[in-house]
């Protein structure tokens, strides 16, 4: 694992979050949520700082981070793509949509493209079952996606795309 060095500022952010939660170990999950929200991901070095601040073992922090699928230790792509794998989406063909995304981007679930532009993930039900199958790119929701549309969705973001205007 390549070590990264955290800037003083980043450490300051983490320390602030921890102290907002009274540096209590029982607030670990809240702390992880906040820190990931601010930094985007939770690399080892960040977990070490959190462990120290909350006075709990790093192993415990890591145990929690690896338990919950919401927490990630790898930075997400610039445009994180999530394919809903809830049942409603599954029976309406999300598997084929996912396969097409994998094919188009040449990456597997949980990976990012080489240029770090896209990352691919599955999620369980965003609750927009009426729009199944659903794909999210960043905050934007695409409903009733067919494998044929995948190319166009990716293209929207490829050339610094016209994505912003359409964001709901």
């Amino acid at each position, binding site marked *: 694992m390549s070590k990264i060095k955290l800037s003083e500022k980043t450490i300051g952010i983490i320390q602030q979050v921890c102290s907002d939660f009274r540096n209590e170990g029982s607030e670990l999950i809240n702390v992880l949520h906040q820190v990931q929200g601010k930094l985007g991901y939770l690399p080892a070095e960040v977990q070490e700082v959190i462990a120290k601040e909350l006075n709990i073992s790093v192993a415990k922090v890591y145990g929690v981070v690896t338990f919950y699928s919401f927490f990630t230790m790898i930075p997400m792509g610039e445009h994180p793509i999530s394919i809903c794998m809830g049942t409603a989406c599954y029976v309406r063909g999300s598997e084929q949509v996912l396969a097409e995304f994998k094919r188009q981007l040449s990456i597997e679930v949980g990976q990012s493209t080489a240029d770090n532009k896209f990352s691919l993930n599955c999620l369980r039900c965003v609750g927009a079952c009426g*729009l199944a199958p659903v794909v999210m790119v960043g905050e934007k929701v695409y409903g009733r996606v067919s494998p044929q549309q995948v190319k166009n969705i990716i293209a929207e973001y490829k050339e610094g795309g016209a994505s912003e205007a359409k964001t709901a």
Partner: protein
Amino acid sequence: MAEYNMHILVCGGTGCKASQSELIKTNFKTRLNEFGLADEIQVILTGCFGFCEKGPIVKILPDNTFYTQVTPEDVDEIVEEHIIKGRKVERLLYKDPETHEIVGDSKGMDFYKKQIRIALRNCGFINPENIEEYIGRDGYAALGTCLSEKTPDEVIRMIKDSGLRGRGGGGFPTGLKWELTRKSVSDQKYVVCNADEGDPGAFMDRSILEGDPHSVLESMAICGYCIGADKGLVYIRAEYPLAIERLKIAINQAREYGLLGNDILGTGFNFDIEIRYGAGAFVCGEETALIHSMEGKRGEPGVKPPFPAEKGYNGKPTNVNNVETFANIPVIINKGAEWFASIGTANSKGTKVFALAGKINNVGLIEVPMGITLREIIYDIGGGIKDGREFKAVQTGGPSGGCLTKSFLDTPIDYDNLVAAGSMMGSGGMIVLDDSDCMVAIAKFYLEFTLDESCGKCTPCRIGNKRLYEILEKITEGNGKLEDLDRLRMLSTVIKDTSLCGLGQTSPNPVLSTLDHFYDEYLAHVTTHKCLAGQCKALVNYAIDTDRCTGCTLCFRNCPVGAISGERRAPHYIDKSLCIKCGVCFEKCKFDAVLIA
């Protein structure tokens, strides 16, 4: 300020929001402003209307007009035609799929006719970000009555008499749960609301929290009063940003109005609520796992007993109920236990909210009385199967449940009947499947979910489900043998019998239930290596019927890998070595010329 003459309700549920309902609301406001009508017409973003299939929904009152699939661009027309000129915009009204008649009023829609909305009473009706609208709908009256006029034992008695059972899946009697926690002696107790809805394809709890957060807060306070707790915690999925936001607003408003905090309504009762976030672990819906998660630990379940009612959060007695259960409480207090008990069946009282999804015309959120039949739900409310296909099964209870086949279409739905039918109520996911769904693949889908979500603490769930999945994988890839079917059943039985928590104990249900009802499909997979539904890619080959093919080139143009060739107006061919079996040609062909072999 004068009262508004007209209210425009725009659905702000997650599904509709995903379709830009917020922009719709903004457009309405802008247009109304331009026409100088801002003081006369109120625009409100509400919770989910339930009719997600046709979202975004806009409802106009008092003339009760129900617009479907509204786009931000439609707003101009609605304002100019309907609001100004009083003419309904017909093209946006709901058309009955059977009769093709226009139904302008939601009361007249089959989707709503058979519903009874108790837990969803305020969803799609009030502005969830305005406590006064909730108060206007009897909000906090139940809390007031309990605190001022009833003893905790009287309230618990009422809940027990109402027959309310836990809506999270297990169906444990709510009143009894409260009583057990009340009886535990401790200096500190907790009320926990389980909003870690994780069933894939279920969004009941989220809709309630988004549409009517105060009903949950009020009930938690009532529960606190009954069991002797002054602290409540809502454990909610972090994947529900909108529900979290509305909940936060609601908690702050309730505090501001003195309905949470110290000395509520001058009765000396103190109660406050905090939010805790889940982080993507389905198993945390299990109450002991949920408690561990709230304590900042890995969400692994613990052995019961001791139950949370004795030793829960921080080792203190804790009452855990799910969102929908809580949402029923104020109505029971306000309208009486007898009223509530008059709805439903002998052992399942009241209503149940279901998230209806899958191959059905009207995907959405419905609330129906216990005892309703599947047929009524699927054909009357749900509008039948999509694309006119044939009904095959309904999956209830998510990864813990099972499939109900045609023969159960007229079985009244309640806790006990569903269990007897080999499924379970679960939290309320209801996925409709048609004849193009392979039941082995469905079982595999659910097991993959369980596998992903197993905490890994106990052997049968950690390894057993993996092996179960591997056998199913083998079968769907055409490598299954007859004895694998026995193996599936034997392993499933042991996993159910020995797993530590509810997740593992129910995880083989989708396998067992499909084995029971669709054994012939399994047999076809392992003996003739055929997938009758054409879902299992390894067992399927696509070919073009040269007699039927008109050479329209549609398949050729849509094939993502260029596996189809042929001249225009001449039969096309599929190169099997290139085909990735995506099925696009099959879907696209207008002449049924693509065959599944």
